[in-house]
């Protein structure tokens, strides 16, 4: 019993050191810095009541929620198709879909510009067709597209794994009871995938909340929170506000993960 306890403690030691050195200490320091401004602890309240910061929070949360919803929808449709249909080139397609996993946000932003920027493919095409150039890379739409693009691989792999584990007899049973394909999807398949949706959706949301590279590259007119933090920190040297914003961002993200974990009853790992 005690020997077991000792062994477990030894096993936990590396994690303990790592957590202490690279998480707890800096976080504590960050919390302290957040309260070091003229307003003290009220600095935390200020980041939520100052319109500029508050708008940044709302925009970032809405963007992340939207990205999560759209990514889940696309990944589920694609995952169902890919898992259920054997066709030549299937492996290649899966590999292509998971390709963005290897890209840093900067590259994703770059790709959005190539597609929808001033000299982009879509701009050229619409220019030729209608005489008017469609450019949306630097707007919310461009940001949204980039986020969805890099979120899909994380979600699709989880969803595909969950679909693969689904007992095909469940769907067959539902069909034998008279349910058509869409009814089976609604009543049997989607409910069975709920844990996977919660897990990968939470990761997707957290990643979108913290994403920086894409927003930075696109230099959009909307300030997502990581951009706001960057601006406060690097341009204005406003350390207290930057720290307070960081802590609140972390808290929101952590809350989303915890919520999904308690709903799903499984461990959700934040990635990215």
């Amino acid at each position, binding site marked *: 019993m005690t020997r077991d306890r000792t062994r477990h403690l030894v096993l936990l030691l590396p994690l303990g050191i790592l957590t202490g050195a690279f998480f707890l200490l800096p976080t504590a320091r960050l919390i302290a810095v957040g309260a070091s401004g003229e307003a003290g602890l009220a600095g935390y309240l200020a980041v939520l009541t100052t319109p500029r910061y508050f708008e940044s929070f709302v925009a970032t949360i809405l963007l992340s929620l939207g990205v999560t919803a759209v990514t889940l929808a696309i990944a589920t449709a694609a995952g169902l198709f890919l898992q259920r249909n054997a066709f030549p080139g299937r492996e290649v397609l899966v590999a292509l879909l998971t390709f963005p996993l290897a890209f840093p946000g900067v590259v994703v932003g770059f790709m959005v510009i190539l597609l929808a920027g001033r000299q982009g493919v879509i701009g050229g095409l619409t220019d030729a067709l209608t005489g008017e150039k469609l450019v949306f890379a630097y707007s919310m739409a461009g940001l949204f597209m980039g986020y969805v693009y890099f979120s899909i691989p994380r979600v699709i792999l989880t969803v595909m794994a969950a679909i693969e584990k689904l*007992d095909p*007899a469940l769907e*067959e049973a539902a*069909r*034998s*009871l008279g349910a058509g394909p869409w*009814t089976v999807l609604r*009543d049997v398949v989607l409910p069975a995938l709920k844990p996977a949706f919660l897990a990968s959706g939470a990761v997707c949301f957290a990643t979108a909340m913290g994403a920086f590279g894409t927003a930075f590259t696109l230099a959009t007119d909307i300030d997502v929170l990581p951009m706001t933090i960057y601006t406060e920190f690097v341009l204005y040297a406003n350390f207290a506000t930057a720290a307070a914003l960081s802590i609140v961002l972390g808290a929101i993200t952590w809350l989303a993960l915890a919520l999904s974990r308690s709903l799903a009853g499984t461990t959700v790992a934040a990635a990215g």
Partner: protein
Amino acid sequence: MSLSTSMPVRLAGCGKTFADGTRALEPLDLGIAGGETLVLLGPSGCGKTTTLRILAGLEAPDPGGRVLFGEAEVTHLPIEKRNVGMVFQSYALFPNMDVAGNVGYGLRVRRLPEAERRRRVAEVLEMMAISELAHRRIDQLSGGQRQRVALARALAVRPQVLLLDEPLTALDAALRERLRVEIDALLRRLGITAIYVTHDQSEAMALGDRIVVMDRGRVAQVGPPREIYFRPANRFVAEFIGTMNLLRGELRDGRLVLPGGALPLAGSEAADGAAGETEVLFRPEAARICASEAAALVGRVRSAQFLGDRTRLVLDGVARRTVIVEAPGRREFRDGEAVGLTIDPTDLIRLPD
């Protein structure tokens, strides 16, 4: 609960070749009478599930094959339009619905009014003796309870045909036995046409009005359980069902000459005047143990296994191969002991050439 329909079912020329080239089923003709329980029996991979899935509408037969429910051809009708009940080895209960939700699902899909639905669900739950489980979650049920719920769910929609794919295989022996008896009584009471897949021969014997023994995508024999057991049509059936002993020897003066003696054959075979090598088969329980002097055949005990109600003996020296016979449980046997056997000629089985 009564099921008005006793739908006869027919497979005509139904073969199945899968996309990867696997030939799972040779073209098969099979008629199932209304209200009959037909058991598909055979070793793993012989095509039982494939046959059942063609009946269900989950697989299409190769071109040329036809599936008929009564007079109507349903070959191209998808499963959701066939009104069949299915029971799976894995139960396949919906984990996001409780027991009543599962049982009522088919009625909900059919948009039955709420009150009617509730009445029918209660009726089926009562029939399966699981009324008290109505509001349990699926993960709160034991294996036996799950299979009862699965049966209730399949029967709630009053299917034309009930299809069961190894429904008891995942259960332990005692429970399997109990549910087998229950299912047997249920099928008889409902008079529903049922096709039951199993690899367990005692299950097949107990449940089937007729048994289809399958071997590598082909029908090896179709018949009532007794016929399958006592008059196997070929070596595969003889060896797959129960234990069978093979005696191979010289036919002389109406007797089969073996290493352990000479065994009298039945009159018709003896009268043939035929001579030469021949073989006969017999079941362990067909042999009677007697004193060596009075016996037609003599052998030595190689091993004896006491099973309580009887003792199973493996004997050397009777035939070229060892033979297995059964003796009453009371008598003790030592290894190496000499025992005599007599076998009634009418209990000998001869395979058609």
